[in-house]
């Protein structure tokens, strides 16, 4: 009875993603034998695996906010631009005013951006894809105005530490992501909030009638998404010790959406998983790092990526699993 067992396994939540991640890591090990090698370098763990965890940080933070937005049946296209704004603000302020003010200003800007998106969606009732498109386009312009179109560099050691430092050998960005994951998880799963968000996404009108403040829910998830994006932007700027308004976070909103979708959260809202969205982000980054290590010509990068994403999504598709089961039965 292999097929039905296969089918049940494939349909058990999260297994497809974890298997996909393990397979990709195994492929990474195959193309690059030193993939799992770890050593300490200047008080920081060093190795390809650490690169994957470190490089995934901005997208993981974006996905953390995005998954809640998508659970309400929304979408936030502006997160890449919000990253650019937050990075620009942090980089411009860090040297003169110190980290606390720079960080507060950058995260404050993220909150404001989220509030703006949430206002357009929840209060004015504009469709999320259109509402957030406005900030996606305008936000990068705002970031360019802040940096005057140049790359603003800084040397403030505490901000640099956010991107390049380590806590007990673990790179700071990884620690920040884990911290945010725990906080977000505690807030949405430690209370009924997660359930209310899922209800809002599942059926907004029914939820409203059931007494859920759907507007407040929607507003809150966009604000949280803006905050996560801003944090991602600060980390991306700290990583290169400069804010590059033209390129920071460019197209990362798509990677974040992809991470959420790979994590099994439907774009039609409802049930969501924070941890699986993180696994989704890791799948994307493990693949990116693997491509870089493989030595294939860069013309293949996007093709390989597309093929892997397709396979991962097919693995999750119930129809595909059913088709597999039918084929298996036919063979018997």
């Amino acid at each position, binding site marked *: 009875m292999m097929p039905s067992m296969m089918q049940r396994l494939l349909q058990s939540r999260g297994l497809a993603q974890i298997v996909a991640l393990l397979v990709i890591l195994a492929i990474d090990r195959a193309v690059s034998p030193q993939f799992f090698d770890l050593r300490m370098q*200047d008080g920081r763990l060093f190795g390809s695996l650490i690169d994957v965890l470190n490089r995934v940080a901005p997208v993981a933070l974006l996905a953390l906010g995005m998954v809640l937005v998508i659970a309400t049946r929304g979408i936030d296209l502006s997160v890449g631009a919000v990253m650019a704004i937050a990075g620009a603000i942090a980089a411009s302020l860090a040297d003169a005013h110190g980290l606390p003010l720079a960080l507060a200003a950058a995260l404050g800007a993220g909150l404001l951006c989220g509030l703006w998106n949430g206002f357009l969606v929840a209060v004015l009732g504009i469709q999320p894809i259109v509402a957030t498109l406005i900030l996606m386009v305008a936000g990068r312009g705002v970031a360019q105005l802040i940096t005057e179109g140049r790359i603003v560099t800084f040397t403030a050691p505490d901000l640099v530490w956010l991107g390049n430092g380590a806590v007990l050998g673990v790179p700071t960005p990884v620690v920040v992501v884990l911290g945010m994951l725990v906080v977000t998880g505690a807030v949405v799963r430690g209370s009924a909030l997660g359930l209310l968000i899922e209800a809002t996404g599942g059926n907004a009108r029914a939820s409203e009638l059931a007494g859920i403040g759907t507007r407040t829910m929607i507003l809150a998830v966009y604000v949280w998404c803006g905050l996560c994006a801003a944090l991602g932007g600060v980390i991306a700027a700290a990583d290169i010790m400069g804010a590059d308004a033209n390129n920071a976070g460019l197209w990362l909103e798509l990677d974040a959406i992809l991470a959420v979708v790979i994590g099994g959260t439907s774009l039609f809202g409802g049930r969501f998983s924070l941890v699986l969205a993180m696994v989704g982000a890791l799948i994307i980054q493990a693949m990116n790092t693997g491509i870089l290590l493989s030595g294939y010509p860069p013309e293949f990068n996007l093709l390989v990526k597309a093929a892997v994403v397709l396979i991962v999504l097919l693995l999750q598709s119930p129809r595909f699993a059913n088709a597999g089961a039918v084929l298996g039965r036919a063979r018997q």
Partner: protein
Amino acid sequence: MTSKALLAATALVAITLSLPATAAELTVGFSQIGSESGWRAAETSVSKSEAAKRKVTLKIADAQQKQENQIKAIRSFIAQGVDAIFLAPVVSSGWDAVLKEAKEAKIPVVLLDRDIDPSGKELYLTAVTSDSVHEGAVAGEWLAKTVAGKACNVVELQGTVGASVATNRKKGFDSVVAKNANLKVVRSQTGDFTRAKGKEVMESFIKAEGGGKNICAVYAHNDDMMVGAIQAMKEAGLKPGKDILTVSIDAVPDIFKAIAAGEANATVELTPNMAGPALDAIMAYKAKGTVPPKWIQTESKLYTAADDPQKIYDSKKGLGY
């Protein structure tokens, strides 16, 4: 009535104010692409200072990366009756109609930094551009000279896949590698011309090449990727500029800071001064009717630690890079 009179008076004052002090002074309209990069901002500010140096009135129209805005700007320059038009074309095709209008109005057009499709060849006076194949070759020759026959494994950080600058800078460098058996490009990946990707790709190169021990030099298609790569090398405990040689292209201020600190070795300049040679060509054309060559190639100058990098950094950082 009074308001009309006032308007007329204001217009008159405006005209008098904008009249050139001497008849020989020229007015040039410059349709700039927009603020796509630091280099572009530097080109705009250098164009202004070069025009001021020659007492030419330069009107700059920022197209915000849109061809339709550039076409509008050119039409408005024609309507204003400028003496010449400078165009930094955002794309290479679709210029024939508007350039024909300029030709009919007898206003010479000079292309800056980028060329257009051959069908428009007759429609402009000259193009002032850098030869990006040559830039790659200059970078390669520096490396060949520096390693002086010793075997050298090179890793390459390419620009955006499909961008003509990236293709050409690779081609130029490869032509030198082909002539020097001791040089070998062991890895080549795209860093999309950005610092963040330059750093990420270099991290992988270092891990894939025995912790960087097998790498003798890095060649990056632009300085920004190299700045990122330098950080990656430092984080891996390597000494960029010593353990691994670096050569990149563009000559943006931050690479001079790295050269001054001994963390980078060489850069090939893509000069932001395209307007200077263009203005000289236009002035000679207007004064004596000298027709310039169809292509004015700017110099691809190589800078190393021997060129007082700190001084160049100080002079460049105010340009808007």
